[in-house]
């Protein structure tokens, strides 16, 4: 069963002008958001995007933009309370080190 999260919230953007159709976005995407059609990437399933940022990071032509961040409520709450960037609890910094 495919998991579905909220619709129409994702910040993913693709600049078709810049895209050269190399296909790396479709390779790194963990949710099959992209498809390569006629030597261009197209976003086929935007609502499945989890904003991990892998596509934008790996696009050699800077054709993809996405505001990536941790999709974690707890991290966002702690971030708000402490006035820092949301950072999930799986951080090693919890050791009180550094």
């Amino acid at each position, binding site marked *: 069963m495919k998991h579905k999260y*909220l619709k129409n*919230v994702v910040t993913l953007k693709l600049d078709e002008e810049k895209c050269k159709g190399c296909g790396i976005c479709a390779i790194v995407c963990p949710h099959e958001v992209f498809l390569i059609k006629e030597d261009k990437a197209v976003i086929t399933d935007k609502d499945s995007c989890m904003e991990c940022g892998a596509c934008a990071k*790996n696009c050699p032509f800077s054709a993809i933009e996405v505001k990536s961040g941790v999709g974690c409520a707890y991290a966002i*709450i702690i971030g708000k309370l402490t006035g820092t960037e949301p950072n*999930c*609890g799986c951080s090693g910094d*919890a*050791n009180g080190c550094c």
Partner: protein
Amino acid sequence: MDGNSRIESRQGCCCEGSGAPLDVILPSDDDLISSIISSPRIQKVSAELTIHDKIGTWKARWGINRMNYKVSPGVYSIGEADNMSPVLVTANYKMSFDLLRKELSGLNAWILVLDTKGINVWCAAGKGTFGTDELVRRISIVNLSRIVSHKTLILPQLGASGVSAHEVQKRSGFKVVFGPVRASDIQDFLKAGMKATPEMRKVRFNMYDRLVLTPIELVGTFKVSLIIFGVLFMLNLLKAGSFGIVDFYGYAGALLVGCVLVPILLPWIPGKAFAWKGWLVGFLWAGYVNVLNGWPLEPEYGLLRALAYMLILPSISAFYAMNFTGSSTYTSFSGVIKEMKTAVPAIIGSIAIGTVLILLAAFVPNI
């Protein structure tokens, strides 16, 4: 070497800037390192997990020593790795390292472990510690081009949010190939000439994947639960019998709904927002608690208190279920922010009103 050695990571700190291996090798009955080969920096490891490794995984799942469950960064060899063997890159969270090496039996390969501060690949990639800079740095520290004569690195696909393949190639000369999401597909990926099927590229989040995450969710609530029980106990000192067994199992049930039941039943609970899913199941639980105590006739603890449970218990479940967004593999930052904008005020509001009702019921006679 006697084949019985273990790596001991230096305790605690991540701030060693030099990047030199932090480990001392101590003789022990843990045979993680089956022998030491020529270079002091390359350790030979087995594809077999020992009982020790399995207990370590179990402990980490329960949050025991989870933040310090590390192997040292560097190069490890599996089988009879030579200069043509593939190089697989992973994080220095020991669970990640073990999940990878147990899939490599029969293979000759190198494992390049990055210093991710003991965090798994995906989380570390999100933070940037499993990242371009660390990879380029590690390649040069271990002198990778003297270990292998080819120029290809295989990274787990989920490392892609931290590692920019074209930038790594520009800076190190090594070509990054993103392998499958799951280590269990690595042998098929290699056999297919480093080609991943669409199935290998997709992140799953099936019932078992969700189930193994529930212990850490529960463990994470112990502290706040103890505080809540402490406060109820203090209130009981003010007026004996104000809080009792119903409050205890009511809360415990609401917590289990949010931390265990919702994660397990996730795709089958109607709705999309996690807080909503938690609220819905928590509402059923709260209704059941009241029915157990005599609803729809007036429960022995009175209607006011019954109403308070309907407000408080679903909100507790909603809160814990909302926190599971961080463990899920498909929630976006924007989506979680949107969900929280409604959920957080609603949770705080209904817990506040419910608390007032419950205090009135407990401390104001004849209401």
